[in-house]
């Protein structure tokens, strides 16, 4: 029996070795390099010994780094909140009110915009929100206001709108999947026992769909912190976030040690927030089960 297991393990390992080898070479090794570089001394285009924590000290104390880190987290939290709150009713609608044969059509409709050119979508938001752009000319044409709203001049707000649009499908799908798993007979039971529709939703459906909500929060929050394209295009480089700072450190200042520390620091903070969020949910919301 033991031999059989090892034969299966060997087969499994043989089969997985090409993709595993690729991932180790192209991902694990570079990430390890970044980790090592982050504790070295950086010079123009090179790193050297001795090992030091100076980069991290600078990252967490220098005002510019702290300001951009806070901005990235703030933008990302707003985007997460907006996408998840906007997505929940859609997921609920598709799961509870759309006939099963049409569900995948709806999901398909929701995911299509995600697969169309990211750069063009982001650039379009600049054209929509900009001064004398599509939104301005629409609002003026309808006579709603006398002055152009020119949302683009508010860098952070336009970045939030653009990212909330880009990540919308990511929030809908996990919530939809968890709503699909909700046992419909529980809802009938709730209403038979005299709860109103709204109370049944609050006390049965919502708690049962929380795993999907948590997944949606993480799926949106984690990548938006590190978004590079949107601040670059929408903010016109005037509203940089942490990813743009990383680029400046790495390529413009050619300080690979500092750039690596920013990368590791950002990933650590994101991981920390995600873990705290998941634990907090387990403690306060999952505890009801």
């Amino acid at each position, binding site marked *: 029996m033991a031999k059989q297991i090892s034969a299966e393990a060997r087969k*499994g390992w043989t089969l997985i070795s090409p993709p595993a080898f690729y991932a180790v070479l*192209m991902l694990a090794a*570079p990430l390890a390099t970044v980790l090592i570089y982050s504790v070295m001394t950086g010079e123009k285009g090179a790193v050297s010994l001795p090992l030091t924590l100076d980069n991290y000290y600078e990252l967490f104390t220098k005002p510019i780094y702290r300001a951009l880190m806070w901005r990235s987290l703030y933008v990302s939290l707003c985007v997460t909140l907006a996408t998840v709150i906007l997505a929940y009713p859609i997921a609920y*609608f598709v799961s509870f*009110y759309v006939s099963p044969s049409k569900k995948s059509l709806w999901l398909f409709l929701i995911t299509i915009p995600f697969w169309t050119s990211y750069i*063009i979508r982001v*650039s379009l938001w600049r*054209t929509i929100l900009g001064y004398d752009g*599509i939104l301005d000319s629409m609002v003026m044409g309808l006579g709603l206001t006398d002055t152009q709203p020119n949302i683009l001049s508010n860098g952070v707000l336009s970045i939030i709108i653009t990212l909330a649009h880009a990540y919308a499908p990511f929030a809908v799908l996990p919530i939809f999947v968890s709503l699909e798993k909700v046992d419909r007979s529980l809802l009938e039971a709730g209403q038979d026992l005299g709860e109103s529709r709204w109370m049944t939703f609050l006390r049965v459906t919502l708690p049962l769909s929380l795993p999907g909500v948590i997944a949606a929060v993480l799926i949106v929050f984690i990548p938006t912190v590190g978004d*590079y394209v949107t601040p670059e295009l929408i903010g016109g480089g005037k509203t940089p976030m942490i990813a743009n700072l990383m680029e400046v450190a790495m390529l413009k200042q050619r300080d690979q040690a500092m750039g690596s520390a920013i990368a590791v620091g950002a990933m650590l903070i994101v991981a920390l927030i995600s873990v705290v969020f998941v634990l907090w949910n387990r403690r306060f919301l999952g505890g009801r089960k």
Partner: protein
Amino acid sequence: MKQGSGLRGYAFLYLLFLYAPIIILPVFAFNNSQVVAFPLKGFTTQWFGEMWADANLRAALGRSLVIAVVTASVATILGIFAARASVRYAFPGKAPVMGLIMLPMVLPDIVVAMALLIVLLSLSVPLSMLTIIMGHVLLCMPFAVAILTSAFQSLDKSLEEAALDLGETPASTFRLIILPLVMPGIISSFLICFTISIDEFVLANFLGSGKPVLSVYIFGQFRFPAKVPAMLALGTLLVAFSIVLLAIAEYFRRRGIARAGGKDTGGFL
């Protein structure tokens, strides 16, 4: 059903928000004005002509196509190995290995790009289309694995055992039984990886040499207001093209599930 109708109205508004940029694309691509704003000025196909006359754009498109085809092929082949291994076999260390393969899905692109760039620079590897492909394969592999895993999961193990009992070798079983059954998944994976690669900007920008690929070229052109209408024309074509590709991918994915006798459970992600 009153609650349902309110939700339905909201759903249509939400779809309108999602599709706003895509609806705007063709409207202004055919608009006879260099200024992208209302009111519309009349119909023209001038921007499509201008776009097509741009030799740099054609070159960038060519590079993107080569990169996308190679990336999609390599990522799908590597994805077949990983998906087959994870569905069929139990082995120690499976969870961490699969975790590493799927990691690029949650890492910010910029981190992946910078990490790869550091290593490439320190090994003095010249940046080229090859280095972009290396990055894109890494990025596409998790999507290929996700699609192919569901294809392999819906495979009935007894079909494979029957073939082996009837005297086929493991290799011929794979070729004659498994491969045809997961073929829709393979095609779907190829198309998705192709779309991701064509679209990807961050890795293509940092790992590429001075010769831009399509996404990098578009990024640069949007800085010049005079170039925007031609870019909208290009965007219209790209959107139409990717909707066709996705519809084909979706068709094959569904056929795959139907062929294996499964039930359709949803979209790509």
